């Protein structure tokens, strides 16, 4: 809502409820229509994530090696049900050596379950 600002937790739920009734489904690539709400680009090429189809420059030169393909981002941010080391229970440190994905992606280890 634009004119009423939700203040307490219940008001935020009302706001969400109203939004869910009135807003259209918004695809990942489009800017949210109507009111602007925080929108986190999840798993898109706006952020550098080794494994995705384009690199940070929009080309393919900086793509990671096939073995990491579709892995890194699934591990952290993506809902995609890929077989990745899970960062909650078993491999919390999988990407520990990868401080900046653009530079250190080679340090992402292989794991053998």
């Amino acid at each position, binding site marked *: *809502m*634009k*004119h*009423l*600002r*939700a*203040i*307490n*937790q*219940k*008001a935020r*739920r*009302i706001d969400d409820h*109203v939004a869910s*009734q*009135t807003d259209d489904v918004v695809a990942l690539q489009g800017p949210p229509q109507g009111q602007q709400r925080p929108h986190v680009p999840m798993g898109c090429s706006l952020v550098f994530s080794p494994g995705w189809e384009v690199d940070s420059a929009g080309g393919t030169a900086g793509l990671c090696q096939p073995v990491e393909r579709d892995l890194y981002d699934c591990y952290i941010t993506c809902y995609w049900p890929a077989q990745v080391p899970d960062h909650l229970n078993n491999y919390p440190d999988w990407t520990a050596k990868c401080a900046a994905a653009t530079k250190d992606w080679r340090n992402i280890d292989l794991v053998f379950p």
Partner: protein
Amino acid sequence: MNQYRLGEFHPFGGGRFLYLVPSAGIFELDDACRAVLSRLEKGEASREELAAIAGPDVVDELHQAHAITTNGFSPQLQQPPADFPLQTLVMNLTNQCNLSCQYCYEFGEDKVATPDGKPKFMDFETARQSVDYLLTSSEGRRAIHITFFGGETLMNFPLLKQVVDYASKKAAEQARAIDFSLTTNATLLTPAIIDYLSENRIGVTVSMDGAKESHDQFRVFANGRGSYDIIEPRVRALIKQHKTRPITARVTMTSQAMDVLGTYKHLKHDLGFHEVGFAPVTTSPNRLYSINESGLDSVLDQFRSLADEYRDHALRGKHHGFSNVSDTLAELHQGVSKSHPCGAGLGLVGVGPSGDIAPCHRFVDSDDHKLGHVSTGLDRARVSDFLGRGHINTKTDCSTCWARPVCAGGCHHEAYVRYGDTGHPNLHYCDWIRGWTGTCLEIYAAIVEHNPSFLQHFADRKAA
């Protein structure tokens, strides 16, 4: 054509905020919204007229939030599910007490308990059944609580220890968290008991009415001697040694003890309690110690000055120990909208020494209010009678009151003592409730405006 009119709400913060009823949502308004609302204060208006004032999307938003309406009906609150999972069990370890406080709801002039022929002390078998009952009836909850109560809780301290052992073991087996607290008059505290309470992270609430003079008015031994001198050193030792949980004081206000500011100062600053909560005595109105209307006004004024102090602390990001404000702010921040005034008979039950289940600790040992037994569980018919009476939808006096999301008619026990019916709204407190809720909303507005991060404290605080 649809005619719009005002929905139900309470404006505060100079008209910048709305507390919506019954949803309990709090919204900040912009000027366009305010223009629409002030038009509707003069009477109904058409959509066209309102849209001309502020634009159609403003009208839509206000309508979606139910701040304005076309049919004049507020949405009704639903019934809670019949198998509402238990969260807290109040275990009355004994109904015996070494004090004889005149106003006591268990033994005093307005008692509801009928303890004749029932055990005076709970035995381990009953306590074990109570714990098992709590564990099975709270399925799905990760964290559960046991509150020890009395009588004087510490008169059955050996059982308390057994229950803590047994319940902790059982909860651990199910990978669930359990915590304990107790209420005591502090007369029987010893260094060993204090150490035990601290080691086992048992929260302690001390019933205490202030400095010696007001405390000794009612909190007396059977021979009439006041208990202040006995408990003062014990309370100091408790606050000093018990560091694992906040220690709180609970004050019962009477016509002879209405000095809120002095009492708070003494308990918080002289003795060092973490938090201090106040509640007026529950009594029929003709008792000498019952607080009359002008007394309540004076109490509310004092509450307000203490609440102002709280606000100033909060704006500087500091804790203030006046728990009546914290509790209300937590409810306002979460947007609690109650179908029932409290968890009694829903998430909370009281269990007496006999194993009888009561809606809460105040009804323990009363045959009229028995809801079941820990060995056999709840009597569904009695529970639904109790909850049916207590539901806000049945309290017609409350149906137009803006404070009903937080009040829902008030304490069932208070209602029973005053009106002989647990489902009667506590109409003798309405001015108080609305006055107090309004005060807390103003504090809330000040915090939202000047130190919103302080509200984080209330996001998870258990609202009553």
